[in-house]
């Protein structure tokens, strides 16, 4: 869009029935997605899940096999990249090595014949605190500085939509934290729509308003970070976004508010509202930090799920919390995070313990465990729970 004007504000991005096939494989199976203007949206997924392809489709660097891309209500599916009011912060930064930092930032402004490109470029460089290096060449900067130049080069154009392709991947942890905060504040300042692609779940959760977890060319679940974390809908989300303890069994009892699952003879209850399915063989789960460890037989209580006794097989201390792995016969390994409220780890390896959690904290997944193929791929979401169970069964039989 060589019009010579900035986008007034961020624009909605709408993907309708998007499909992308490459010779030999399908990168995006079916994608319907709406990103409201001014939001910070993260596409989260493992490598090869189709998230970068999605970004390239939006930027216009690839053509979709099927489907429509709308930016601000306008169909841009067949527009060339230079005609779209979209800018990208590339994973590799892709700074022009033959230009100074300033010329890199002014490049887009000059192409659109926007007045005072140099002044605006300086302004953008001040935003990322690199104006003093404006006359250096990109290769004279550190990785983090190059990353900020790439960001300034994209932001200075005031695009309707800013695409970020794992831009923090190459940075060390401290710099990444700092850049995450900077990105977030820049987004607030300029009011653009950000589409951020990453495989780092922590990055997605801290930065984005809405996170979409992508797997195998589809969006598995979409929502606010806290909602996704507290109520994952599939085993893939439950394990990709943090860790989960998952148990698979048949539904044996239903009340008006809860369902009870029989896991190898042990009853686990989850609230009906927090379970995706209410009948048949289902997988239920609980986050490790919501599980408490007990050293004596707990009282049976309808508001609490209790498993045990089991043995602590591994204790790893990580400062803020301690991770315990408890092997419970017939159930499998249960992971427990417990905060270090006292000094050091309280329970040592080999101890006999019980685990318990409030019924309200559990969740039930959508996956149908019986759908799972016998030799599933490691990332196959539907079968993680079943795999765990089978592995444990054979282990027990062997013992």
């Amino acid at each position, binding site marked *: *869009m*060589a019009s010579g004007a900035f986008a007034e504000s961020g624009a909605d991005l709408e993907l309708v029935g998007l499909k992308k096939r490459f010779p030999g494989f399908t990168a995006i199976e079916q994608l319907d997605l709406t990103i409201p203007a001014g939001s910070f949206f993260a596409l989260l997924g493992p490598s090869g899940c189709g998230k970068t392809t999605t970004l390239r489709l939006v*930027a216009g*660097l690839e053509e979709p096999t099927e489907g429509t891309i709308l930016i601000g209500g306008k169909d841009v599916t067949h527009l060339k*990249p*230079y005609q779209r009011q979209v800018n990208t912060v590339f994973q590799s930064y*892709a700074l022009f090595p*033959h230009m100074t930092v300033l010329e890199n930032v002014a*490049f887009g402004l000059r*192409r659109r014949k926007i007045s005072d490109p140099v002044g605006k470029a300086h302004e953008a460089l001040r935003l990322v605190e690199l104006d003093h290096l404006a006359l250096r060449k990109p290769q004279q900067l550190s990785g983090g500085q190059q990353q900020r130049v790439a960001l300034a080069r994209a932001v200075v154009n005031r695009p309707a939509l800013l695409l970020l392709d794992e831009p923090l991947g190459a940075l060390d942890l401290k710099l990444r934290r700092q850049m995450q905060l900077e990105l977030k504040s820049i987004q607030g300042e300029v009011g653009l729509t950000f589409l951020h692609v990453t495989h780092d779940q922590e990055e997605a959760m801290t930065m984005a308003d809405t996170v979409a977890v992508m797997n195998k060319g589809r969006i598995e679940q979409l929502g606010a970070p806290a909602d996704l974390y507290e109520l994952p809908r599939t085993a893939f989300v439950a394990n990709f976004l943090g860790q989960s303890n998952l148990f698979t069994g048949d539904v044996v009892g239903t009340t008006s508010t809860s369902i009870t699952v029989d896991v190898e003879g042990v009853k686990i209850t989850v609230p009906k509202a927090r379970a995706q399915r209410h009948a048949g063989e289902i997988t239920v789960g609980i986050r490790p930090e919501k599980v408490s460890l007990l050293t004596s037989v707990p009282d049976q209580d309808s508001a609490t799920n209790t498993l045990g006794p089991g043995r602590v097989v591994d204790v790893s201390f990580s400062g803020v919390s301690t991770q315990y792995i408890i092997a419970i016969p017939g159930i499998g390994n249960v992971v427990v995070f417990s905060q270090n409220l006292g000094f050091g780890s309280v329970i040592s390896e080999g101890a006999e313990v019980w685990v318990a959690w409030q019924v309200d904290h559990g969740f039930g997944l959508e996956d149908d465990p019986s759908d799972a193929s016998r030799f599933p791929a490691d990332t196959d979401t539907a079968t993680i729970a079943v795999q765990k169970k089978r592995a444990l069964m054979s282990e027990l039989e062997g013992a």
Partner: protein
Amino acid sequence: MAFGAFATGTAQEQAPRRKSKIALILLLPGILYLALFFLVPLVSLVITSFQQPIPNGDIGEYQTAFRWENYTDAISLYGEHILRSFFYAILATIFALLFSYPLAYFIGVKARRWPLLQNLMLVLVIAPFFISFLLRTLAWKSILSDESIVITGLKALALMAPDAHFTGTASAVIFGLTYNFIPFMTLPLYATLERLDTRLLEAGGDLYARPAVTFFKVTVPLSMSGIVSGVLLTFIPAAGDYINAGRDFLGGTGTAMMGNVIESNFLVTLNYPAAASLSIILMAVILVMVVVYVKRSGTEDLL
């Protein structure tokens, strides 16, 4: 790791710069070679260019003198040839660049996905080298002669006047020069374009640059080192070439270049001082043009 942090900046300085005799010994053959086969002939050439004929001597007998008129004579006598040489060489270089850039771009960038095609095309570019330069030029002479299918065909189609010739014209010489030096242009261009980061081209498109703008603002500047070396490798030998313009090859009576003039002065009229002063003029002009060109293309690092 932690201790390494304190060492930065001092590590490189600490490396002792020992004076090694081995380096000197290894350099010696090269230095001797250059002294013997470059410096000595150059000095001899300069001396010859100021020589004057021995009074009452035989043809081709000269004595050492400081006859600087040799230069003014050469310029006034052969000014036309000097200008023609550079005109032909510049045109041939431009045509070679226009022909080679798309070719090198295709081999180096577009054909990356098919390494087999890439290698095949590179072989095709280099293959003509396996045949002698003279033979190739002679072959073109017969391909483009008045009786050849090409020329009779063009005349039959009325694309050429019935009494026109191609060989012996300036176009034929420029064609021959272009053809013969295309590999020298293509290979350095290929070498730089092969390393071109295509993600930068995507970035150009992302930053509102049309493909043509991306080409001139990103691709061309990034391949400048290849353009400069290709131009030098083509222009310098083309300016001094005497095969293509020779009457036995693609040239005619009106196409003689400096190389031809030097050749005839040296071998036919035995006027060594004139041949030597023309050679010096050729070298000097090429040197000046190259320096100006390299300065203007902003790649002083090459010199």
